[in-house]
């Protein structure tokens, strides 16, 4: 293959990464923005979503699309439920203290990982894609499913944006984010908003995972790299800014795709992580965000 088509392929792969990454990072960013909680267990919600997707899809017979659609609905609901319980049992009791919650979510990370290892096992297992249509481009054929992933992600991002900026629920969330005490004084049930946001954040990660399992397999350690990448995205994009998150996901996903094709993936990770740490040191509000309150 010549350089041009090769670059197009790398960009397409990067866009698929970006699509999934944007959803996952959006969940992390919402939780941080509204609750000021850094959820280190976010990668494990992603992993849980993928593992459940495998369990649900293999429980359904018939055409693969039936199992996949069932997984797309049920898996995020279960993950959201787990997050809800975790919030009620642990985070709420810590009064959402930023440092204590980080320690607690690290604990949650290990517990979820070990639970998955116990009940799912150390194997990596695939989920069949709902359809196998291949789009033929002039230079190579490309998986139609991967393009559908990009589309689905765009739809979900638009839906989130709509809910946040155009509905009453979004207004309540923004009010809580802006000043939770005043919001409470105006009768907003801040505690319930927090629980809801934590569950929705986890569900976004689970949806991203269900979308990705037909491409890469479900494994109990699969949450690690995406967690680091979503941290990077959220930091570059500015903590708690939706537009910044999407732009940063595009930037990181596509450049990760292109760099990994042409250079050593380890070097790419080293450079990305180092650059992000430097951004956090010298521009804590992110490249696109406004100064933190």
């Amino acid at each position, binding site marked *: 293959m010549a350089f041009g088509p090769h670059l197009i392929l790398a960009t397409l792969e990067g866009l698929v990464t970006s699509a999934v990454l944007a959803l996952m990072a959006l969940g992390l960013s919402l939780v941080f923005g509204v609750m*000021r909680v*850094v959820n280190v267990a976010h990668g494990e919600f992603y992993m849980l979503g993928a593992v459940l997707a495998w369990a649900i899809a293999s429980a359904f017979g018939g055409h693969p699309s039936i199992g996949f659609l069932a997984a797309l609905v049920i898996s995020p609901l279960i993950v959201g439920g787990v997050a809800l319980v975790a919030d009620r049992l*642990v985070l709420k*009791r*810590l009064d959402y203290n*930023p*440092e*204590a919650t*980080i*320690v*607690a979510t*690290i*604990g*949650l*990370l*290990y*517990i979820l*990982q*070990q*639970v998955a*290892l*116990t009940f799912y*096992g*150390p194997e990596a297992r695939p989920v069949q894609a709902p359809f196998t249509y291949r789009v033929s481009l002039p230079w190579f054929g490309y998986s139609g499913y991967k393009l559908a992933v990009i589309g689905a992600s765009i739809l979900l991002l638009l839906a989130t944006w709509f809910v946040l900026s155009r509905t009453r629920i979004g207004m309540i969330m923004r009010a809580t984010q802006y000043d939770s005490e005043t919001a409470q004084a105006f009768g907003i049930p801040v505690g319930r908003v927090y629980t809801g946001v934590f569950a929705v954040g986890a569900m976004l990660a689970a949806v991203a995972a269900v979308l990705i399992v037909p491409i890469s397999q479900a494994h109990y350690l699969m949450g690690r790299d995406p967690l*680091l990448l979503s*941290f990077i995205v959220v*930091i570059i994009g500015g903590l708690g800014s939706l537009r910044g998150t999407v732009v940063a996901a595009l930037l990181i996903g596509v450049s990760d795709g292109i760099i990994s094709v042409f250079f*050593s993936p*380890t*070097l790419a*990770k*080293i450079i990305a*992580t*180092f650059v*992000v*740490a*430097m951004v*956090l*040191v*010298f521009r*804590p509000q992110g490249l696109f965000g406004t100064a933190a309150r």
Partner: protein
Amino acid sequence: MTGRDGKAIALHGGVIAALFALNFVLPEYHHGVLARVLVLAVFAMGYNLLFGYAGLLSLGHAMFFAAGLYGAGLPMYHFGWGVLAAFLSGLSAATILAFVIGMLALRTKGVAFMIVTMMFAQVGYLLVYYFGSWTRGDEGLVIQQHARAIEIGATTLDLTEPTTRYMTALFLFSVVLLVTFALVRSSFGRVLIAIRENEERTRMLGYDTFANKLVAMVASGAICGAAGAAYLILFGYVGSTFASIQYSILPLLWVLLGGASTTLGPLVGTVLMFYLIDGSGDLLKTYAPGWNISHLGIVGAALIILVLFFPKGILGTIRDRWARWLP
């Protein structure tokens, strides 16, 4: 010297004497375990200096421990350096790293500090793989037994021999314990506590908080590096696991369990956690066969339980309830 000081000094002397006596009575297995725990407790004490006293929660201390390990291990393995030179090399690698990281990371606060230190540690972890031809990645380097000995005049001190190894570990532990004990009672230690409690007010009182935090960071990194270098020399192995995030979490867990900002908390936490993990392995095998739960599940549960119910740890709680004099 007040009664309070007397009690504290007697307690520390007593702990060291008890550990010395244990060398002669412990069965072989526990003797080996305790030698390892003492070195890891040094790591925890280094962490405690920064987290417990200065109130800076780092999620990247594995990089200082690993700098000690690799700083000592690489020249020993590739250039055949002696034990003492290797130890100094590991110690200075970690100290320099702590200074550089401190200069950068201390510009941030709170959650940002936690994430920045975690990311720098992640860079360090990945660098171990990137230079795999030198470090051999997760396979790691094994230092041959004959290299792990000190020659003093005509006698050779074989650090792989159990009693010598235990005494060396105890020596390092005692030195670091007494140094931290002196540090936290000095005016410097009091400034660190003041920074932890209210940084703005401390600055307003005319203290250079950045410089004090930087000194704490360098001292903490140096102690962790000493632990790493000693671990390599006494146990003869270094692999990439020691640079991974897990080894940044473990000292946090040990310190939380034993009691942050208590001088003996790190030792108590490390010993208890080690035996908890050790014992739970057998229990799980007996009562839940077929479960693949490893020690990480225990670590996770312990973290949540501690932060929920015992945020002050064992010695912190004892100090609050019964023994106000506990340092």
